[in-house]
């Protein structure tokens, strides 16, 4: 992207300084540079402040599921497990629903309806996570305990995933709350990507005798698939880093269990619960190392998501309906 303004390169440095241009440039440069510095500082601090834990535990940090602040032994496996399981459950629910809804909004719904719903969906994306947590605690948890968990157990009880006592709090509940939270993101991005598929692709399919559904499913969706995948990665990054809603319904028990009903713990939730009251320096540093792990995970996923979305919108360039 070229700089938007005409460059004032032809004038001498001195005259630019007199006009105040050079001063304005340097002043704004300081603020722009501070963004870069803050980002570098963030990575540096996470790295630096976890040095004790990194040296003491090394890679065993990721291989052990013991989290014992009293014996000062810290392993992250249970938290990593909980984070991945809840995010997987969330995506298994949110991806089909979200993409289905996006296809409806982009291909089927009249433009007025589509734009109105999109407005509300954007508002839903702005709802803070503590409110989803509140709703999770008082609505989803009782519903799960009373209806969903028992019926899942009676129908699918032979699968290890759905065995064991169900208290309402646990991986499954956290996954469902997360799914509710990320659906707006998936719908919003996927709809945008689907709308950017060039019109002639649809017309060509219809001209060849495809039905509306065939043109949508076999032509439009494949054309937009990298972008849709991008929205999924975005949702994944969000669910991995989501703190409050998960901390409130996952049960906060650092345990690895095959059952989705059992209480677990996630990386973000343990940081939220323990950092303010960490008992020793090693405890604090282990928590900060967990923050570093979370940072790296989301960094990679966000990068992938962005590449995928850019690739798709470039293929359909010029026809994005704003």
């Amino acid at each position, binding site marked *: 992207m070229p700089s938007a303004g005409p460059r004032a390169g032809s004038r001498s440095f001195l005259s630019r300084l007199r006009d105040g241009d050079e001063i304005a440039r340097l002043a*704004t440069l300081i603020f722009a540079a501070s963004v870069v510095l803050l980002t570098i500082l963030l990575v540096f601090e996470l790295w630096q402040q976890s040095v004790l834990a990194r040296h003491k535990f090394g890679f065993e940090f990721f291989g052990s599921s013991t989290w014992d602040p009293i014996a000062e032994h810290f392993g992250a496996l249970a938290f990593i497990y909980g984070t991945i399981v809840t995010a997987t459950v969330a995506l298994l629910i949110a991806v089909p629903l*979200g993409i289905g*809804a996006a296809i409806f909004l982009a291909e089927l719904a009249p433009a007025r309806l589509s734009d109105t719903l999109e407005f509300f969906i954007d508002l839903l994306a702005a709802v803070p996570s503590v409110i989803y947590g509140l709703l999770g605690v008082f609505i989803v948890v009782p519903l799960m305990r009373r209806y969903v968990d028992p019926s899942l157990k009676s129908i699918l009880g032979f699968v290890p995933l759905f065995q064991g006592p169900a208290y309402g709090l646990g991986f499954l509940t956290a996954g469902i709350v997360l799914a509710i939270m990320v659906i707006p993101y998936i719908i919003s991005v996927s709809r945008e990507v689907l709308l950017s598929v060039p019109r002639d692709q649809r017309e060509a399919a219809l001209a060849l005798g495809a039905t509306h559904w065939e043109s949508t499913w076999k032509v439009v969706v494949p054309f937009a698939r990298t972008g849709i995948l991008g929205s999924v990665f975005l949702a994944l990054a969000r669910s991995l*880093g989501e703190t409050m809603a998960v901390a409130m319904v996952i049960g906060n028990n650092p345990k690895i269990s095959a059952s989705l009903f059992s209480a677990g713990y996630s990386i973000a939730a343990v940081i939220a619960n323990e950092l303010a009251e960490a008992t020793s320096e090693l405890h604090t540093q282990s928590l900060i190392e967990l923050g570093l792990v*979370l940072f790296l995970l989301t960094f990679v996923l*966000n990068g992938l998501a962005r590449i995928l979305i850019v690739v798709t919108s470039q293929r359909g360039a010029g026809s994005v309906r704003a």
Partner: protein
Amino acid sequence: MLTMTGVCAAVSVSALFLILGYLVVRGGASINWDFFTKLPAPVGEVGGGMANAIVGSGKLLLLATLFGVPIGFLGAIYLAEFSGHRTAFIVRYSADLLNGVPSIVIGVFAYSVAVLPFKKFSTLAGGFALGVMMIPITLRSTEDFLCAVPNSLREGAMALGASKWKMIATVIVPAAYRGILTAILLAFARVAGETAPLIFTALGNSFWSPGWTQPTASLPVTIYNYALSPYEDWHRQAWAGGLVLLGLILVINIVARGILSRGISVSRS
């Protein structure tokens, strides 16, 4: 099959609305004047309110705005008007990176630079955490709106002999002010509901916060603590707090979108 996608849309949208409708009903039934004017009642007593949390949130957001908006806004001016390719790429990349970092990690960062060295939780640390979160949102959208100002305006101002900074201050920024205002409001609404970065920076407080260097209560953290408490009356207040917080955020969002759609002062084609 197409009807199935309609079902998907209906299920997702209606589930979301049912849930929020429930919040409005429960919150609406719980809210009263005391909620806005009283301090929290001692544990076990019924009554009291979240006045300290509301003021605390206001203080935190003021700090966040004072820290985040100037960096985002002036940084965006540099990107749109002064920078070359390479610097712009680095700044944009950092901002996007920062934007993607989970809020809890921003909190850990604020904890390690603003809490650990002073061995003290403080309002300032909480405001810093929220401010860091505001920077990338303000920066990227402000830059977009500045770049949407047509070059003819720049050339016109320059042709009249204005220096570059005069052109920016009197022509470009006024031309894009609606967009910039929207960007700032949306960034504000985004951090207003953040809980995770405040838990271990601003901590919380059952009383009025005595100063900027002391812990303070905030609306999201108080909702979180009350929701997980075993007291019925605190649950009631958590619902009321949720409704107030959500109302604030949705109003800001709608106002921001309204400002933008009432005609961007510059056409974006």
